[in-house]
């Protein structure tokens, strides 16, 4: 049932990357429980604008859980309390009248704050460009059905490929590790026959890049898997490790 609730927000405000930030308190009244979380922030921002104040900066685009643009830590949880849900897909019906909600940006050395809740995630692009692709040029591909791929393999690859690159895994990890994100891409491509020729180089290059970009190590806390809005499995990290070890062996042989 739709109802209206009143809530208190404590929101991280920070003007720029090198400026000190802090929490500000706002009251959001008459919030319909049918609203999405971001629509609730829209309402607060409309009021801030009318009051002549600076609205809260936050990233968002598709608002349907697929672009990976949105994200914030809500009461200590990446993307909020609902399992398998991005912030834009979270609805206010999961909150109660009188609640206080603390909203913070992703916090990780590799993701510097741009403004308020907006962070710079370009490190993820850097990891992909280190090797997250199959080297084929447009034009030379054989007929699509010339390489049969077992359905289970295709499905496993698709499970890994579902990652939206939001960064919640990094924010949730006590070490700010990017292993789930990187593992998902390495797995997708290592599972498929098309990706095998480059598998070794890819694993080495992406893992090295990840370290270089100041992401932390994985110490098996599993927070990433718990908070990932696309429920990317931690088994992808195991596969990354196997690929990495295999790659090490191959490069020794060379």
């Amino acid at each position: 049932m739709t109802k209206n609730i009143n809530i208190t927000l404590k929101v991280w405000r920070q003007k720029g990357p090198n400026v000190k930030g802090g929490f500000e308190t706002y009251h959001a009244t008459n919030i319909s429980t049918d609203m999405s979380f971001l629509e609730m922030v829209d309402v607060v921002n409309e009021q801030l604008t009318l009051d002549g104040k600076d609205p809260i900066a936050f990233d968002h685009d598709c608002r349907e859980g697929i672009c990976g643009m949105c994200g914030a830590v809500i009461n200590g949880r990446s993307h909020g309390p609902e399992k398998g849900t991005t912030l834009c897909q979270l609805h206010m019906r999961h909150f109660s009248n009188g609640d206080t909600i603390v909203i913070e940006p992703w916090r990780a050395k590799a993701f510097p704050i741009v403004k308020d809740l907006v962070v710079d995630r370009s490190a993820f692009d850097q990891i992909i460009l280190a090797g997250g692709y199959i080297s084929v040029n447009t034009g030379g591909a054989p007929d699509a059905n010339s390489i049969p791929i077992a359905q289970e393999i295709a499905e496993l690859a698709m499970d890994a490929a579902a990652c939206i690159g939001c960064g919640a895994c990094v924010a949730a990890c006590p070490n700010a590790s990017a292993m789930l994100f990187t593992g998902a891409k390495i797995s997708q491509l290592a599972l498929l026959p098309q990706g095998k020729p480059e598998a070794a180089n890819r694993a080495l290059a992406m893992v090295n890049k990840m370290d270089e970009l100041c992401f932390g190590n994985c110490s098996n806390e599993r927070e990433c898997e718990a908070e990932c809005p696309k429920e990317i499995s931690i088994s992808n990290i195991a596969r990354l490790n196997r690929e990495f070890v295999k790659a090490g062996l191959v490069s020794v042989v060379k």
Partner: protein
Amino acid sequence: MQLDAKIPSGPLAEKWDKHRFELKLVNPANKRKYNIIVVGTGLAGGSAAASLAELGYYVKNFCIQDSPRRAHSIAAQGGINAAKNYQNDGDSIWRLFYDTIKGGDFRAREANVYRLAQVSNNIIDHCVAQGIPFAREYGGLLANRSFGGAQVSRTFYARGQTGQQLLLGAYSSLMRQVAAGQVTMFPRREMLDIVVINGQARGIVVRNLITGEIESHAADAVVLCTGGYANVFYLSTNAMASNVSATFRAYKKGAFFANPCYTQIHPTCIPVHGTYQSKLTLMSESLRNDGRVWVPKIPGDKRPPNQIPESERDYYLEEKYPSFGNLVPRDVASRNAKAQCDMGKGVEETGFAVYLDFADAIKRDGKEVIEQKYGNLFQMYEKITASNPYEEPMVIFPASHYVMGGLWVDYNLMSNLDGLFVMGEANFSDHGANRLGASALMQGLADGYFVIPYTIGGYLAGTDRPEITTDHPAFKEATHYVTERTRKLLSINGKRTVDDIHRQLGQILWEYCGMSRNDEGLLKARKLIQELREEFWKNAMVPGSSEDFNQSLERAGRVADFLEFAELLVIDAFERKESCGGHFNEAYQTEEHEARRDDENFCHVAAWEYKGDDKDPELYKESLVFENVTLTQRSYK
């Protein structure tokens, strides 16, 4: 001025081959010397930037989002068409061509559409090679489904995330070229003007969305792949940043805008539930393969759906279109939903919703089968509405979704401005007055992977271009214009938020220029838009400064452009005295209330030239010549 589409001569099936042979080639050693700007990183922009870089051109690629991987294309759910005929069910290049031409209500160019069908197969080959995990059969070969009313199964898909997977494929090829130093990425940049020198597009001016700095970039050619303008309706299924600004600025610099009134209203979206609503969510069209659309027979019947007996339900699509039933094309399904609601038969509190019921499908196939097919969609629906579609019918209503209109381009995908290419949803070219499901992804990738790599070479090898840099006065002028406009926006200091004004614009268009239109309403809309535009420049409130990350300013600039563009949309709708595809003028309908085309007088592309802020735009007509198909009244009975 005569619009020349530059369609190659010869038989339809041989035009593209012949043209590719006739196009001049750029010497491989010279490609390195050419700079190409690609604006947009969606399926069209991402694929173009990657393919051009692979050929050796040096590419600068721009997007609004923080990463190229987040372009709006990522949201496409249903799938991508190709004429592979892997299912042996009678598909062919010719059939895909014919379905697309007919689906577009015979308002697209034969030659373009045929080429699209031809290269559709190469797209699937390339995407599989990139590692895109398309759905597969047990035997390991690719799976297909029938989609959007097609009577053959030609749609390839990756669960409900086809757009995401195709885009990540293009993104990975793009990143490979960034790593190779062939592409420089400029994310969080918004193109605010295009620079034309001696009639040739030679660069762009962008705002760095983080620092607010205005930057100039020069090139040998500019490729716009900036997506569609469905957000002119405020509420739409498009991503929040989707805009008309890039194409509209090009229009103001002399590029013709074609068929702006062809907008697509998608029949199956989650209905509006409150004024705070910021966007609408699409429920994939594939749901109509198994869901049955109905409303209560008695207007105003407020009983819950499961208390309405079979005999008092009106399955209006099945009734009216016995051969296509629930699978009629989008424009037909949307108009019929509206007609039912206008008769007072709409459901939910608002009365603007119809049911999409899976009860019979679940009874027939079992819950498991339905879950396998639509599980993720049902889950998404439940997340948003808190209602369980396994137990209760879904409620759906049409929403603004896609635009067929866009910048005019010739067969080479070049606009009337030399060196300005336009691709993907941003151009007008392949879908006529109505787009069929799963064909936008196909078009974006066809343009980027398989058309532009050839046609841009022909242009670069065949034209003289003086050496220029960003010191050229035209860049200074554009920078000045952009800076002034930003200053103006920030100094309005009014009392209404930009979103509030945008919402009102959406209401005007939805009411008078939405699913059905009439002359009186269009005239009224034009006046209301002019008044609202005036209100915007007097009374909008744009906080913050220009030298900062300022999302309010970004939105204000986009809405200011929508307010101008909306008038062009309405003018075009008024001028087209017929009904076709997404454009339905009530004065032109058959006895059965279907769209009635006027092939004698309106079988043309309407291309508009900007003449000044206080002047009406000028209309140019490109006649559409059909040599290979016979124009028929679309019938889905």
